[in-house]
């Protein structure tokens, strides 16, 4: 389908709706179709989803736990494609996004896990094309993401060999230590943990914002699920001395760094990146709790993340298209009056990403703070302060966007005479309203996703009892 979408890319609506429809159908299909019973496809071919498929001699296995994670990837991608239809219609996100989806779902299904690392690397190379905007200077974000993913590859591949060797010679415990170090560094690179975080604000701040959010939610989500798969496959890793302390400390540093830098930004793009960095830090803290509650909160944070970030990126795309691609405060002055719907999407998305009450971010952040408060009240407080940091950044952006026109001569804030610039279109408005309602709906009724997160956590047993 990615090839077909690439061919019809000239007809942007067709390409976008094909991408959206494919991702949505796959997301719904993977949840609703039975695993153990054969399903009739076109041409009379019968396939049981749960059966092992051999692809180039490697096994692809869809297990119960994988269904929800794959549905999450497909449905998140569908949402991003739908927003991109109105906000970045001519982007390479559609074909490349579909290609990345197939690679990432392959990474979650393939055995042994070394192939997953290679598939994630190929998906990272695809993301460079999606992140690059048409007619813009090359983005550092895509290249940096590709660089960090390439640097993570050796660690993941060599770990597999070390663990195979350990299975043959269990006396050599040094192999476990080397594997733990390599895995930790590799996943730190892939997840953008401090000090390897520089690609996160670069991916969000440069290039196509919705492609950046695709990387930060779908690609990064697949990496998170792969990490959990590693922890489940190699349970000795989670009980390795001081492993949970390391996760907790790195997560906390990410939260502090993101919270400190978010309000200091003078552009909206990197602000999205720092909001994602704080969220990743909070997720690492949850995983560092090394308990069932911690794993449930990890899943909850991953499920809630796309709502705020996608809305933020959609709003940012709408605003950038009216400021020649510049998202600095000076370029955005008064733009809120010309693009009120994009502004609304940005602000509501920003507040959701910061964890404001009645937003999706609040449900996961508040639950994590409550779980942390008895044992680490300082960490809980820092988490709340980091959310306030993002809020301050959004507030500063809103302040610039809502500068009132002083006089008709002030050309920077007078509505454009070009009717295409002045209006955001009724379809865009409907889409923004639906996205905001969906965001607030999940914020008010988070039980649906919380129950799902709890069910997902039940599939994992690597944590301490």
């Amino acid at each position: 389908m990615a090839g077909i979408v690439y061919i019809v890319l000239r007809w942007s609506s067709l390409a976008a709706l094909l991408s959206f429809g494919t991702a949505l159908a796959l997301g719904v299909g993977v949840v609703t179709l039975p695993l153990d019973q054969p399903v009739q496809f076109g041409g009379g071919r019968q396939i049981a989803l749960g059966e092992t498929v051999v692809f180039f001699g490697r096994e692809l296995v869809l297990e119960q736990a994988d269904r929800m994670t794959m549905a999450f990837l497909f449905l998140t991608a569908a949402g991003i494609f739908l927003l991109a239809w109105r906000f970045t219609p001519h982007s390479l996100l559609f074909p490349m996004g579909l290609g990345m989806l197939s690679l990432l779902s392959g990474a979650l299904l393939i055995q042994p896990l070394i192939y997953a690392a290679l598939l994630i690397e190929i998906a990272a190379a695809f993301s460079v094309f999606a992140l690059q905007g048409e007619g813009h200077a090359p983005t550092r974000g895509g290249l940096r993401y590709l660089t960090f993913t390439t640097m993570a590859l050796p660690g993941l591949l060599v770990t597999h060999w070390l663990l195979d060797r350990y299975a043959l010679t269990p006396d050599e415990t040094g192999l476990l230590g080397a594997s733990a170090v390599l895995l930790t560094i590799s996943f730190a690179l892939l997840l953008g943990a401090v000090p390897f975080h520089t690609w996160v604000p670069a991916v969000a701040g440069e290039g196509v914002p919705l492609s950046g959010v695709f990387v930060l939610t779908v690609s990064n989500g697949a990496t998170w699920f792969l990490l959990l798969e590693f922890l489940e496959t190699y349970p000795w890793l989670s009980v390795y001395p001081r492993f949970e302390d390391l996760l907790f400390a790195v997560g906390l540093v990410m939260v502090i760094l993101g919270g400190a830098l978010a309000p200091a930004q003078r552009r909206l793009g990197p602000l999205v990146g720092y909001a994602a960095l704080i969220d990743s830090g909070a997720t690492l803290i949850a995983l560092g709790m090394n308990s069932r509650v911690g794993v449930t909160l990890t899943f909850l944070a991953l499920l809630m993340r796309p709502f705020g970030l996608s809305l933020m990126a959609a709003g940012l795309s709408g605003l950038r298209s009216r400021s020649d691609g510049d998202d600095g405060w000076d370029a955005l002055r008064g733009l809120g009056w010309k693009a009120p719907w994009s502004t609304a999407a940005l602000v509501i998305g920003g507040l959701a990403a910061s964890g404001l009450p009645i937003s999706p971010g609040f449900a996961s952040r508040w639950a994590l703070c409550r779980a942390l408060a008895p044992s680490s009240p300082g960490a809980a407080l820092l988490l709340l302060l980091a959310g306030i940091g993002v809020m301050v950044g959004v507030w500063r952006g809103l302040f610039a966007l809502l500068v009132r026109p002083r006089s008709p001569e002030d050309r920077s804030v007078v509505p454009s005479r070009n009717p295409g610039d002045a209006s955001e279109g009724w379809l865009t408005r409907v889409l923004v309203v639906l996205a905001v309602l969906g965001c607030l709906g999940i914020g008010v009724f988070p039980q649906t996703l919380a129950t799902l997160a709890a069910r997902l956590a039940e599939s994992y047993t690597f944590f301490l009892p």
Partner: protein
Amino acid sequence: MPTLVDLLARISFLAAMPAVAGILVTASLLVISREWRLNVMSLTLQYFFVVLLLTRLIRLEVAAVKGLIGWMVCMVLYLTERRVDMLRGQEASANSENEVASRRHRRWVMSARTSFCLLAGLMVSVAAYTAALRLPLPEVPRDISLACFLLAGLGLLLIGLSESPMQVGMGLLTFLSGFDLFYVALEPSLAVAGLLGAVSFLIALAAAYLRVAEVAAGSEERTL
């Protein structure tokens, strides 16, 4: 007509320290030079030396395929840079002769950047030599260990020294060559070899795409 096996048998004496020295020279040239012709030639030669070392670890045919992938990658980079050069040449056709002469003169003067890159390259090479002595890689001979450390270290240095898509792309390819040289000894699977080849090719395509975007954006800015 001599076969590939005959040809490689004739130059097999190179597949030891001479190949490692060749890798050191070519990777250092990539770090120091910003002249695209020299860089593409260095990368092509670097793949040749890597293939020579690979013949000691894996079957000749597999090593040859890896070499072919590397040379195809070099071809992609060469064609991209040639096209970019032509586009720039058309724009700068009005350049005065003085400017051309001054450029020729500058080519032979070592800039501060070149000196810095040379020094950094030397330091990384010394670090790679020390690492090969103190932490030899498992399953590979010591000279190949040194080649792996040199490629990985100088590749990372190249990535760190520049934000230009081509330099970063070449750095990533150099880094991957170093890892590939080590990993074939651990996992000789053809599927892994194929996927690593695909990764190299996609990195080259991504670098070429960004390079073209860079030139297109630059010419758009000039026309505005």
